[in-house]
Structures are given as C-alpha cells and as structure tokens.
C-alpha cells in the first residue's frame, strides 16, 4: 500500500519544493529579510576568541568613544564604547547569542506544548476542544509582560527560567492556529479515506495530520521568534532578564539609559540590532506565507 503511494508523493514534492524556494527568492522583501538576518546570526555565533575585543574588557582610556564614523570616533571601536570603555560591537556580537538562544529555545518549548494541545483539540473535538480553547482564552487574558515579570520576580531569573517563562505562555498562539489547521486537515478526504481504510489513530496523526501542519507552523514560528525576541529584550531592559555582566541587547540598552547625554549611541546601537532582526523575521515570515500558503497570498494582497 504505502509502497505505491510513496514514490508518487516524492515525485510531486521535489519540484514543488524547488518552485517554493524560487518563489521565495523572487519575493524582494523576503530576500531583504534574509540579507539582514544572515550576517546578524553569523555575528551572534562568532567565536568569542575572534571578537574584536573581549566583551567584558574595559578600556578605561576609551570611555564613551563615539562610533567610528562620527567625530572623535576610532576604528579600533567601530560602534564606539560604553561608559566603562567596553567595545559595543564585541558586546553586541557576544550578547546576540544569548538573545537568540533564549528566543529559539522558548519558541521550541511553546511549539511543543501548543502543537500537542492544538492537534488534540482539533482532532478530538468535543470536550477536549472546549477545555483547550478555554485555556487559550485564560492564557491570552493576561498582559504578557506583567505575567512574565511577576513570575520572574517570584522565582528569580536565570537563563533556563527565562526560556520557560517566555516559552510556556506562547503555547496559546500555537494551540489556536494549529487547532484551526487540524480541523481543516481532518476534514480533508484523504484523511477520511485513511480512516475508512482502518488506519490506526497514531499513524493517522503522525503520517497525515502533522506533516500537513508544517506550513502554518513554519510561518507562525518565524513571527513568534520575533515576538519573543522583543519580549526578552523588554524583560532584560527592566532588569529581570539576562543578568549583567552577561550582555544581552536589552540589558545593553538599559545600561546606556543613564548616559543618553554623553553617549547616546550606547543604548541606541544595541536597539538597532533588535529592530533589524525583528524586521528581517517579519519580512521572511510574510514571504514564507506567500510562498507556502497560496490562499493566504490572496488575503495578504489585501492586507
């Protein structure tokens, strides 16, 4: 049975995937997003030993040096230094890995919980559906940042704690979207056919339902990473996220707050990092949506 189905699926899937990649690369915004994102990711993963300066090293003779392109700037510190004479470029490159790591881990956690809940709700329906959807409502009723900082204030902050506190509440977005997509998939004829043929439930879910949820998942994940990056930076800005001396973009902005008169660049430059990554992710998410979900394409032409 599966031996006859498999080759045909593969035969269809390859050209479609290639076509999707090509369509994605034709989308100017999506390519702009990639062009923005790739160097940032490379910079964030750059080995510590190869950074221009050690991120925690203070050059006390070079405090609050402006970026190189401005009057008084030096090329030894392309993006300038902070009030302790630490190189901003090195700190941003080093801090980026923490921001990205927290956001990616949190999104993974959110997807695990949310997809499970969403598939159960959509596939089972009935009471399971009602319970999951009411829990989603409860979750979405909280002003997220208040809930996050309240929990952190109670339980203390650490990298794993940050991941859990940012990731767990984000399950609700996944559950809601995946539930909707599951309903559509389950209603499709091929699922009905598989069920009529007496397919086991686990096989039905893993073989027919889950693969068809990949598209909404990929699109949602792109936007969720962006959202959680913003949230992480806000929490770190409030002093409850990644703790000094470890730099994160949010903590760097907070550090620069007290020096806006003498050195405006100390907090504005790390903020540009967050802004560009989030913008890039939004561009890519839009592009993916156009390519992977043709129905959404028609809708987005309107949005």
């Amino acid at each position, binding site marked *: 049975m599966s031996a006859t189905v498999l080759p045909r699926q593969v035969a269809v899937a390859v050209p479609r995937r290639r076509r999707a990649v090509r369509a994605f690369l034709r989308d100017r915004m999506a390519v702009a997003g990639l062009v923005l994102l790739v160097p940032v990711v490379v910079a964030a993963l750059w080995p510590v030993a190869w950074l221009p300066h050690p991120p925690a090293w203070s050059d006390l003779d070079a405090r609050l040096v402006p970026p190189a392109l401005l009057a008084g700037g030096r090329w030894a510190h392309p993006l300038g230094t902070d009030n302790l004479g630490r190189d901003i470029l090195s700190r941003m490159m080093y801090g980026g890995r923490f921001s990205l790591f927290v956001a990616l881990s949190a999104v993974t956690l959110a997807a695990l919980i949310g997809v499970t809940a969403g598939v159960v709700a959509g596939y089972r329906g009935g009471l399971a559906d009602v319970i999951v959807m*009411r829990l989603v409502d409860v979750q979405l009723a909280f002003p997220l940042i*208040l809930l996050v900082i309240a929990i952190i204030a*109670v339980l203390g902050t650490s990298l794993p704690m940050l991941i859990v506190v940012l990731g767990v509440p984000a399950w609700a977005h996944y559950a809601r979207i995946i539930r909707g997509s599951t309903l559509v998939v389950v209603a499709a004829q091929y699922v009905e056919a598989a069920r009529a043929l007496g397919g086991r439930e686990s096989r039905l879910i893993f073989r027919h339902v889950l693969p068809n949820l990949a598209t909404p998942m990929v699109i949602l994940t792109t936007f969720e990473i962006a959202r959680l990056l913003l949230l992480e930076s806000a929490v770190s800005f409030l002093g409850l996220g990644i703790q000094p001396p470890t730099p994160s973009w949010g903590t760097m902005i907070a550090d620069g707050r007290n020096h806006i008169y003498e050195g405006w660049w100390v907090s*504005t430059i790390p*903020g540009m990092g967050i802004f560009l990554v989030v913008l890039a992710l939004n561009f890519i998410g839009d592009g993916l949506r156009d390519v992977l979900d043709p129905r959404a394409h028609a809708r987005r032409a309107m949005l």
Partner: protein
Amino acid sequence: MRFLLRRFAQLLVVLLGVSVVVFGLVRLTGDPVVILLGEAATAEAVAEMRAELGLDRPIYVQYARFLGRALRGDFGLSLRYRQSALSLFVERLPATLELTAAALLLALAIGLPVGVVAALRPNSGFDGLVRGSALVGQAIPGFYLGLVAIIVFGAHLKLLPTGGRGTLAQLILPAATLAAYQIAVVARFARGAMLEVLGEDFVRTARAKGLTRARVVAGHALRNALIPVVTIVALQFGTLLSGAVVTETVFSWPGVGRLAVQAIYTRDFPVVQVTVMVTAVLFVVINLLADVVYVIVDPRIRVAD
C-alpha cells in the same frame, strides 16, 4: 442573544481560570508567615500564625477564601505602603487610562485615514510607504522607541518634557511612543478591510448606480470596513496595557504599569497580584464588550449564529 449568553458563560470560565493562576502566583511567593515573622520566629509562633491565616487548611479551602476575598476586592495590604492594594491600584488607574486612551486616539486618528487612503490606491507609492512604515512600526521595541524619543526630543532638541504627568506636553512623548505600534496595526487592518469591502458586490452596485466615488467610499465602503477595525482596536487593549508597563517605566508615568514594576522590584506581592488580576479582568470584559458591539453593528453575525 444566545450568542451573547454563551460568550458570557465563557467569560466566567476564563475569569475563574485567571483567578487560579493568580492564586498560584500567590502560593509561589513562598510562605507569607516567614515574610511576616522573619526567619527567627519560634515554631509555635509560626504554627499559630499559619492557623490564623488559614494556611493549615487544604489548598482548595485556601483558594476558595482567596476567591471570596478577591470578589470583595480584598487583595490584602500593600507590604510597602501599608494601604489596601486595590485602592493603590485604583489611584493609579486614571493615569494609565489617560495614557492608553491618548495612544488609542492617536492610533485611530493616524492609522485609519492612512490605511483607508492606501487601500484606495493599492500598490501606489503611498501604499508602499504605508505598508513599509507599518512593518517598521511593528518591529521597534516600545521601550527602545521611548528611549530614542527621550534622546532626540528631550536630551538634544530639548523640546518636550521626558517624564512625569500633569501637563499636555508631558503626555505627548509617552502617548506617541505607545501609539506607534498601534498605528501600524490599525493602518494595516484598515487597509485590508477597506480593500476587501471595495471588492464586494454592493460596492460595485453603488458604483453602477452612478454614485460619485466619494459617496461610494464614505457611504458604503467605509461603514462596512470599520466593523473589523473596531474589533481589532478592542483586541489591542491587552497589547496597549502590556506596552504601558514598559512605556510608563521609561517615562516615569505614574500609572499602574509603573506601580506593578516597582511592586515587583520591592517584592510587594499583594500589589503585583491586584495589577495582574484586575488588568486580566479588564481585558476579558473589554473583549466581551467588543463582541457585543460587533453583534449590534453587524446583524449578519446574529443570523449566522
């Protein structure tokens, strides 16, 4: 009507869920007896205090007591101000409402016309500008925008005050900061809703009748496009409140957001609970109201239900 009743029942369920989470948050704060008596208290004093506070009872009894008190607005005394936590919250609420209302007004005043005009000329230069700015507006962290506004308008141009509340000038920067994201959201949705309506049959009919473009847009299209926009605006209330937490901190705006952040720093848990609980309740109730308005302005929903 049945639709609204069902929504109301859902609201009660959600509020119960919210209360469970807030109660859980209370329990997570650790043993209040230790906080009240200190680490050096004798075992008897601790046991006595526990009995007095009902902490020796089963957890569901404690929850029922918590819920009963919360319904009467009793969240305990602020540990820092020695004042009812709820009254502290209520004192600060007008400042937050002022800020969020100003931001919402700005978002509608700018986002709506910009979105509608963009929809009238899709794919024009103006349209591209609107879509691009909307993406940018949604990607800037609120606290960062606030900081940049302080640096530019406060520190360097010295045009506007950067903190406190009282004068209209003090409202401008925080309100604009908070509004930036909402302007982007409203513009995007207004554009989308308008485009969708412009493609509908009744708009084509109106045009075919020979009505002027202005009358078709104002009389037929705009009225129908506003419905989804109203809903989106109401749903943005939660985002606005979250944004207010950060904006108020950046601009030293004396609202509930800043109150909550300060309470968290000083471990003033009753105040934290009351802010989390009441904002969640406000959010849920406003969503219900949005649904009610939606049903009133769009009779089709009643039929569909």
